[in-house]
């Protein structure tokens, strides 16, 4: 699983429950659900130096 970018998405109620992430060159929407394996991978990716989940637009 190769993550190259991640950015929070602001929903219509102003919350940030999902993350727009590019995994293996494919854009995906990942929920902030601890039992979602992609969310787990994003958290690990974000702990590495130089990686950060970008703020929502």
């Amino acid at each position, binding site marked *: 699983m190769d993550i190259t970018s991640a950015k929070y998405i602001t*929903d219509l109620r102003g919350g940030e*429950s*999902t993350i727009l992430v590019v995994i293996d060159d494919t*854009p*995906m*929407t990942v929920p902030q659900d601890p*039992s979602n394996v992609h969310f787990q991978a994003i958290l690990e990716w974000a702990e590495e130096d130089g990686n950060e989940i970008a703020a929502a637009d």
Partner: protein
Amino acid sequence: MSRARDIADFGLVSSRLDTVGGSSGALSNRNLFQNGACLISQRGTSFPDANGMTLDRFKVTRNGATRNVVTQENDGPTGFSKSLKVSPSTADTSLTGSDLSFIIINLEGQDLQQLAYGTSGAKDLTMSFYAKSNLTGNITVSNEVNLGPPFSSRYFTISSANTWERHTLTWTGNPDTAIDNDNTTGIEFQMILAAGPNFSSGTYNEGWHTTGGDRVRSDNINLSSSTSNYFQITGLQIEVGDTATPFEHRSFGDQLKACQRYFAKSYPYSTAIGATTGKAMVQTDFHENNQGAGYREKYDFQFPVEMRASPTITQYDSAGTSGKANYYITVSSTANHTVSIGNLNARCLGGYSDRSTTIGGWAFHYTADAEL
């Protein structure tokens, strides 16, 4: 039919029920695994460099220099029409370090509580399946509780090349480690097709243990030794108790629903993900009227079944471009637009359009991935 014959037939049925019941398992729905007959493959039928999910519920993973092609084959032992086939695409004749190729089979923890792991009454677990390979030799299967440790391995031997053989492996219950009672992985089985010394250099151990290097037999086959090699499997059944009962066949529809707890798609079953088609896209109801500047069309869609967890969503427009959607202003639509996904949970996804674009409604295809 005579009364004597009726009584005789009833006796036969009772005897068979006793056999199944004696295994401590259920009389029906015994298989704890979905898609054991390899019928369902929503993601496609060929996976050129497999390193993740392949046929539904079957993950094929590699590490180091090993590379594999995975296919769904129209081949199986008598009574089975499909199987999963692993073939190396790159030869790795001398495995080193953490080189690894293996099939992963995950079971949800909340579905395994009847095993009573972590208690003195922990029950045995039996895996049975049909396998075929051009290689003969031993293949290790590691059982890992809550993704491990603890580990406990078993192995089976392919005795006759290019021949379907049935194998049965039984693990004793683990009285020390309880399986997490939730929707995460309770037990992971790893069927080892090639393993470097980091996994096989220790003393192969069938008891419950915590040393990763003791998981794999040193004489495990190396499927990666030649691109001419292959390994096939089908009829996989995992059941409570120490007895392997006959494979419990279930309908395509039943199996598809069971698999959709972990992966679903909007495309028709036989349509490839990312295909150029607008058929069966999820779409908003009202898409023939331009709603004007600043309007955001929001809509929620339910998944076919409640999923294991909130899934990861990948969108596709009608041109097959990932991350994109179609916008309607009139009855026709154009591709390559943006729909953001919010309100995402195990039951539904909600999407909303870009405020800066004039729109009447939108549509897209999706895959929803809640695999373990």
